[in-house]
């Protein structure tokens, strides 16, 4: 005779077994989702052959990527229409080898991103200040990450600032000044990677200090809002992020 307790046990087991083949919803990061998500390489292989320009290829890639997500969960994108609630603001470099969304293993909706040459912020640049103001006032994000990287072209440009003119020269001037102020120390290192890494770290620290001392950040902190500013360096040669431990909070 089947007792009530064993009936519920059987019901529980049946529910679990029926759930095994149903795909759970992706809520955390890409690798937590079941394997039927296509990898970028798999999507590339599915792009129909033909004479595509690069931008046509990107549009084809995107079509396959969005269908993959929709076949997995028809409401995948509709979940985003209610607004964005990112947990972090990333101020990084425009460099094509530093894809911030991929190397952080995050899913869409997690990181509010500003990318410019050599991940710089200055008090008279309304572009980056607007990003920070939106972050603090509107999105109320608690963590801001300034992320530099090794082999940075902007840092190299700052060490040869006289070779440039136009907007780039103006933009990298603060980093060039930083280089001049630390020239003896940096030039003592071997040229190439070592000097780039050293100036990159100093630049990240410089930007962390600028952001941490902005009026809008001070005001938000006085009103009780948490604003932490972290400084990281992405090591392109290993794919690893290094926390420089210069957090301003």
């Amino acid at each position, binding site marked *: 005779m089947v007792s009530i*307790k*064993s009936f519920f046990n059987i019901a529980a087991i049946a529910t679990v077994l029926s759930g095994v083949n149903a795909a759970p919803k992706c809520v955390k*990061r890409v690798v937590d989702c079941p394997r039927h998500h296509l990898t*970028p390489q798999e999507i*590339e292989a599915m792009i129909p052959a033909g004479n595509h*320009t*690069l*931008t046509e290829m*990107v549009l084809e*890639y995107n*079509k396959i*990527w*969005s269908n993959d997500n*929709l076949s997995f969960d028809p409401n*995948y*994108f509709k979940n*985003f*229409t209610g607004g*964005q609630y990112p947990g*972090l603001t990333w101020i990084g470099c*425009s460099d*094509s*080898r530093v*894809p*911030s*969304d*991929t*190397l*952080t*293993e995050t899913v*869409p*909706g*997690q990181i*509010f*991103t*500003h990318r*410019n040459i050599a991940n710089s912020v200055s008090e008279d640049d*309304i*572009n*980056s200040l*607007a*990003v920070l*103001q939106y972050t603090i*006032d509107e999105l109320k994000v*608690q963590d801001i*990450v300034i992320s530099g990287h*090794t082999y940075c*072209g*902007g840092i190299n440009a700052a060490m040869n600032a006289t070779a440039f003119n136009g907007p*780039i020269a103006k*933009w990298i001037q603060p980093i060039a000044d930083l280089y001049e102020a630390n020239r003896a120390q940096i030039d003592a290192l071997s040229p190439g990677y070592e000097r780039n890494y050293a100036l990159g770290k100093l630049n990240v620290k410089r930007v962390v200090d600028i952001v941490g001392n902005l009026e*809008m950040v001070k005001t938000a902190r006085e009103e009780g809002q948490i604003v*932490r500013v*972290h400084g990281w360096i992405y090591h*392109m*040669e*290993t*794919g*690893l*992020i290094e926390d420089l431990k210069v957090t301003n909070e």
Partner: protein
Amino acid sequence: MNSRAFSTLQRSSITKLIFQAKPIRIHRGYTASLLNSIRKQQFPPNIKYVHNSPKPVPALSLPEQILKYNKEWAKNKTKADSSYFENMTAVQTPEILWIGCSDSRVCSDVLTGSNFGRVFTLRNVGNSLSTTDTNSLAVIQFAVETLKIKHIVIVGHTFCGAMEAAFKYNSLNGPISDWIKPIADLYNKNKPTIDALPTHKQQNQALSELNVKRNVDIINSLDIIKKTKKSGKELNIHGWIYDIENGSLQDLKVS
């Protein structure tokens, strides 16, 4: 065995017994069936074995999560291709400059598969450009002069917060007010057309598309772009819109 015969205290004692139980030595005279019935008394089948669960791990903040998962990402990438990162350290040769919005839902790297060093990225609030903004002009100059980029794509998107800010421009102050002003002016110039649209989503999308067109015009008017095109180098400007509701990029054909 009826599980209702055991109280919670008895069950925890049984659990302790299970983990402390020594293996039964087989002695002469014990048959297999007798041994089985002894085992059933030690391991009653209907009992749910409650283990001491490990202490719950406190939730990581997103930066801590990223630092942790980035290590796994790097390890997996290296396992699949041991020279993947070494190859990345060569000089970058992207062919596309993406000028998009900072919005967290519009991950340019993910939706274009650009983790192959393909896309040089500028992301700011409202994917906006102006002829006086050193920040974006420096990116464009570097892309065109140094990297010899062949395509510039300006990507707006639906449900854009910058368009919402433009709709309520008078309530803004600080840097964001200066930044949004060109988009607010664009809205005021096209107010009747935009306000006539039935839903708020359509109004936001209409302004976003007009903004993309505005930026394409700004880029085409820059000296550096004119010079590059005149010298015969390949340089194409595109305007796209990303629909957040279905994840698809559409070409607005405003080149």
